[in-house]
């Protein structure tokens, strides 16, 4: 077929298959077709057994991160035409157990997220009106709150592979998001959580996370900031911020 996208897709059902395999599919290309559209085409027309995660198809829900053509990307934001000239391989997120095909078990990822106490802790009773925050203070959160928890950073990080307890870049971005929020008042506690041997100092500054992030968040920068705060905190306790 001339105008087609050619994919090689990871297939595995740990309960039934002895080993994983790769299966080839060819999808007729349409203008504007995304890799996610192509996966739907396969599921609708070629192979109903294929499974993958999906929700918004507009780059905001974080469901469809996968390894496409050598890089972690959101399937919904990637044009299928990248597989026009040569076959493109699609694999699930790495460093997480496989449930089936492109669907991984995200439980370890969410466990790390929950561990950093991912909620505002102002430490004072709620005022009658909003807690005041200047546009400059608010702008420190700008990029950090864009995180869609797609786990591209987690999958690309060599440390999440070697240390299962490592909090990982996504949870640490979240921790930093609260550490820099002018309304939060739990910095010391947050630094204790992220400052242990499975926290920020486990990061080897490989920067894979920052390259992988589809929202250009720079998790390595967040980890760097937390390292700086934690170092300051542990070395000279009184002046943390």
């Amino acid at each position, binding site marked *: 077929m001339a105008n087609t996208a050619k994919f090689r897709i990871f297939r595995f059902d740990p309960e039934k298959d002895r080993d994983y395999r790769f299966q080839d599919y060819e999808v007729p290309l349409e203008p504007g077709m995304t890799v996610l559209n192509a996966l739907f085409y396969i599921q609708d027309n070629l192979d109903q057994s294929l499974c993958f995660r999906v*929700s918004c*198809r507009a780059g905001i829900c974080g469901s469809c991160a996968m390894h496409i053509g050598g890089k972690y990307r959101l399937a919904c*934001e990637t044009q299928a035409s990248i597989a026009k000239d040569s076959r493109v391989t699609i694999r699930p997120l790495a460093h997480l157990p496989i449930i089936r095909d492109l669907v991984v078990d995200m439980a370890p990822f969410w466990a790390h997220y929950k561990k950093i106490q991912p909620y*505002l802790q102002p430490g004072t009773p709620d005022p009658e009106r909003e807690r*005041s925050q*200047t546009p400059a203070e608010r702008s420190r959160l700008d990029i950090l709150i864009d995180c869609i928890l797609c786990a591209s950073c987690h999958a690309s990080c060599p440390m999440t592979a070697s240390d299962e307890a490592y909090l990982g870049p996504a949870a640490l971005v979240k921790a930093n998001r609260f550490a820099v929020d002018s309304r939060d008042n739990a910095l010391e506690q947050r630094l204790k959580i992220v400052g242990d041997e499975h926290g920020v100092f486990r990061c080897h500054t490989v920067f894979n996370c920052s390259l992988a992030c589809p929202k250009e968040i720079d998790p390595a920068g967040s980890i760097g900031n937390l390292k700086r705060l934690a170092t300051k905190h542990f070395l000279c306790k009184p002046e943390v911020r």
Partner: protein
Amino acid sequence: MIYHDVVVVGAGLAGLRAAIAVNQKNVNVAVLTKVHPVRSHSGAAQGGINAAMGNNPRGGFDSVEKHAFDTIKGADYLADQPAALKFTTAAPGVILELEHWGCPFSRMGDGRVAQRPFGGAGFPRTCYAADKTGHVILHTLYEQAVRYEHASERDNFKIYDEWMVTRLVIEEGKCRGVIAYHLATGKVEAIMAEAVIFATGGAGRVYLPTTNAVISTGLGLAIPYWAGVPMKDMEFVQFHPTTLFPTGILMTEGCRGEGGFLTNKDGERFLKNYSDSAKAMETAPRDIVARNMQREINEGRGVNGNFINLDIRHLGAEKIMERLPGIRDIAMNFVGVDPITTPIPVRPGQHYTMGGIDTDENGATCVEGFYAAGECACVSVHGANRLGGNSLLETLVFGKFAGEAAADYVLSKSALKKGDGALKQGLDEELAKFKRLTESKGTEKAGTIRDELGRLMAEKVGIFRKEEELKDAFKEVKNLQKRFENVSVSYSGMKFNQALVMALEVEGNLAMAEAIVYGAAVRKESRGSHFRTDFPKRDDENFLRHTVVTWDIAEKKMKPSWKPVILGLFEPKERKY
């Protein structure tokens, strides 16, 4: 059998807020959701959330009554007025609660929450976080859910990720629980509950194209409908004026609120040529703008014949990067257009389900113990047309009220944990249905029916409707339902059987399509989003009332009825902006 006092179905904003409300009353609650909470469609909302805070210097004289008036006028007077006032009265408290929970709203120079103008609103009252408001609020709510989960004892607050509810079990007019399919393991289980709250979102995927997520199908409404719960005002389907051409991804109303223009192929701001939008122009309400855009396209003045330009270039790079960064990313990623230098191609597309499960202003339905909140419910505060910025608000206001009402109901109940037999029977029937689909030798594919239905609805039950086309559509929906009986799912494994999930959802789409077409056919007038070219005027004498459809379980067919609109605050007047 798994048991929880209250089960919430859906973990978008309405579901999470309802669950928190139940937990705050110290009643045991579980949330069942077919996707992880942060994957819910609430996160795709962009523009903002309305509340009469008066933070914007131009909004100083705003009030909850004015917000209620705008909501009711926007609804083309089909909203229940006391409910609308209760809704807008709760709004400022909702914003403060979100802020106290850490929601990163954009701010004004003086440190208060920023507010922007939105369509159909008399004052700038839409609070926002750039153009990612739904995303940040959803994440804030999930953060709070984690906090409540941490704080609760003995699994008193529990979230079941990727547990898809497929059936509601009602016995002797009382809610007994649900049947749910756990995607990761393939298990199907009956879950007993004293009260069930549906917060399953809209049925956008009945139409194609739509701004709605792939998960926002008709099934969330069809499940209670099949169990005998009435649906209200289903013919009112909102078409958002600005969805990206051709994919249908939402381009927020904030683009126009911030000053963007809509232009035709001659570069003309054509809204000035239509009497209902001549004054408000781009900030007229969605139904009016969508209709006038479609008229331009139908009359040959669309760009390249099939779209309209959304031009925000004059806002300048700095404002676009600050207020609409997500819009820019989407336009660049999906159609290769940078809005700083080039107008964005848009057209109207399905966006919101105004109708839904018939509830009162506490989310209660006619079934004891069954509640609904958010887009799947119809209170009704949106009536015939919802204002932008009111849907995020609805999820939080009525999510909370429904959660509190359900918790109070459980606390008042004496005989607990009944309905074992009905749940077991429901489970058996559900398993038999799954088996039928996966073992069927039928030749139809659910995906084909899904696509044909979506196109049919957009073509014949879309922005402009008329008798003959609605009659055709009804026949065709019936025919597609017939064809669905011949659908087979070729993969029979139960673990993450996405093809099976899709087939179940398509069946739900078909049921809701029938209700939508039926409502559109009997409502021989034009009101809000429902426009009949053969009855172009609003007819308060005959149709200032809600359409209701109920599934007759014994006879296996739809039964129609009507319900009065509750007025009392504002007399219906002609709607102009």
